[in-house]
């Protein structure tokens, strides 16, 4: 199962812990299963209109920014983060 780091403002949805383990082999499955176990994540993280992770969020898998596509593969022991997408200035 993948380890999902919960954004701090959402930790009330998971009892205050930093991480939870979630089954799934894509970002879609991970996010859906996270929401099933702890309702509220799908609405916060996914834009149903575009069927993508919301603008302003980047999914990071094992430290690598993978963007906003829900079909991104997630490995069995991967670490998944949902973090702000940030661009720079130069």
């Amino acid at each position, binding site marked *: 199962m993948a380890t999902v*780091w919960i*954004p*701090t*403002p*959402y*930790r009330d949805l998971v009892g205050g812990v*930093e*991480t939870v383990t979630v089954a799934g082999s894509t970002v879609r499955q991970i996010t859906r299963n996270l929401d099933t176990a702890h309702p509220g994540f799908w*609405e*916060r993280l996914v834009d149903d209109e575009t069927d993508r992770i*919301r*603008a*302003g*969020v*980047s999914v*990071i898998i094992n*430290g*690598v*920014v*993978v*963007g*906003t596509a829900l079909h991104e593969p997630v490995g069995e022991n991967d*670490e998944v*983060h*949902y*973090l*702000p*997408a*940030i*661009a*720079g*200035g*130069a």
Partner: protein
Amino acid sequence: MTTANKKKYKVIGTTPIRHDGADKVTGRAIYGIDFHTTGMLWGKILRSPHAHAKIKSIDASKALALPGVHAVVTGKDMAVARDIEVEAGETSLNYMHLSDNVMARDKVLYKGHAVAAVAADTQHIAEEALDLIDVDYEVLTPVLNGREGMKADVPLIHPEQTTKIMAFRFDPGTDSGEKSNVAGRSQLKLGDIEAGFKEADFIVEREYTTSWVHQGYIEAQNATAHWNNDDNITVWNSSQGTFNQRQLMAEILKHPVSQIKMVPLEIGGGFGGKIPVYLEIPAAMLSKKTGHPVKMTMTRTEVFEGTGPASAAQMKAKVGATKDGRITAAYAELVFEAGAFPGSAVGAGAQGMFTAYNIENILIDGYDVVVNKPKSAAYRSPGTPQACFPAEAVIDELADLVGMDPLEFRMKNAAKEGDRRADGVQHPEMGNLECMEALKASDHYKSDLGGPNRGRGVASGYWGNAGMPASCSIAINGDGTVSLAEGSPDIGGSRTSIAMMCAEAFGIAAEDVHPSIKDTDSIGYQGLTAGSSTTLRNGWAVYEVTNQAIELIKARAARLWETEPENVDFADGVFFSKAEKELKLTFKEMAGKLMETGGPISVAASVAPRGAGPSFTTHMVDVEVDPETGKVDILRYTAAQDVGTMIHPDYVEGQVQGGAVQGIGWALNEEYFFNDKGAMLNASYLDYRVPTMLDLPMIDTILVEHANPNHPFGVRGVAEISVVPPLGAIANAIYAAVGVRMRDLPMAPHKIVKALQEKNGKTK
């Protein structure tokens, strides 16, 4: 300084003359201000004299009656953009906010906010017409400070805005339902902050403020737009991303993206400030109304008042450490003034502020607060210089309490591969500690200060860098040269760096590659020239096209040698037969045989690279403070930075030096002076004090080449991070020189004199 993981190259790492050098030094390069086209009109913007006011009415009849005036547009002429958040490059934005920032509709939200635009035969007529537009305002009380703006009894800039508890910008998150100027509240939490502070033997907690500062690019914003009769729009301008701006234009004008062509002209600096659109929209609207191309350029005052500077911030920082110098916990509260619309860089500041250190327990609260000032924009490592200032100053105080050398204290706590950032992500392979070690081994570290009232300060910094998509194409010419097309506006020498990677792959000279930067109809999608990503991502694209071309040429060589392509190999610029060693032709020789072996070869590729690799840096500065006047002189400055593989070392060094100089200005001189009505009082370079070469010594660099393992040439972004440490490093140096801790930027002479008087008990 090169680390063990760097490959050997022939072109990469050399310093050829830039391909655009001759045009730029002879004045032939075409910038926006140089652009001219047949039948062109001039546009000018009428801007609000008030920081906060309702627009009761706009009467442009007198202006329209002025001979030579062709059209006037106002916010009422603009379609209402969608109130949604979208990706734009690697950042995100709200179209409605962007549209309302381009031209006010019902309210003006800062002095300088655009309220109308005029097109006329000449600039002078257009300026004269602005005076003839009557705008009736109902002036409102402005909100001019972030902490003040958070209070319950202040005017609401956006009356319907409620505070959202967000994990990220535009997160629908949890709506507090409370109407407020606080647009968003975010938090990063790692470990157990209370336990971490309990473990500490020393705790330092302080408050800090920074002022609004501008990126200070030399070239003002400009745009020429032509809305043709067939509804195709062409825009010639200076921007940090043609494809991003094309998307923004399409949304705001509600026009098909396929009917907008953005033509990149040369750019005279951006540093983040040329990511948004400003003039492009009114220029296009005026062109539609008049049928003529319309050119608009900003004055320097307009640039200061009407574009996006970096946020001012009010911050608290609290850090604890054990007696042996291990940092156990860090807390911060960051209040960033977003300007007139939500979306400061507070999130990026939170992500970056303690990231150079391995701290197991961290809590950072961030507040994004709207105020009646220009909408903030990105500025080189957005948000991170502000946030790292308190972090580095408090860490310096802790080192003092623990009794450790400040650089050794940082080395003891330096983040390494596998350590976690405040947001929980583990650091990849990088050279943070190597930078600190290199600085400690430097002549600068070992040198004496050589006089009284002199002090040395150090500070570290982090910036995450970005990837973003890129496209390029190449055409191999018969003489063995290569025409290379890409689409990223070249701010820091990227076209030559990209050409060098192409030359490296083919085993030819950098001068044999001819790079050009194309418009949005002529090249595949490009991300922003931002996020320190351009050389990295276009290097990936070049890697793809050169590999593809080499395979095609192998097949041509096989045809010549009457063998199969798998029997041909390529190394060091030479194609050769694996079986018959005497059969070999250089890339140039093969280029001359393309026509006889099947015709010309050209290749295009698009990529979306991952694994950008973060930047780390540590700076050291010696200052001398005049205790009578408070003037600070920078005596010596050294920046040590992990730069990955350097493609063109001069450009890398220039980026490091340029960022350091901007940070020095941020620390010592630069600030927007606002009066109590929200008017900027120093909107010119005469009064907005940017450091010049006469103010500074040579910025020494120690360039640590820790190659990015996720890039074919080892590139990691280098352009932004060096603006981060100077704020803290100089504050720490001033303390070392004269014993006062400066916590309010800029550290201007009068503030230092006052602090010295208070220290010496001579407060006036």
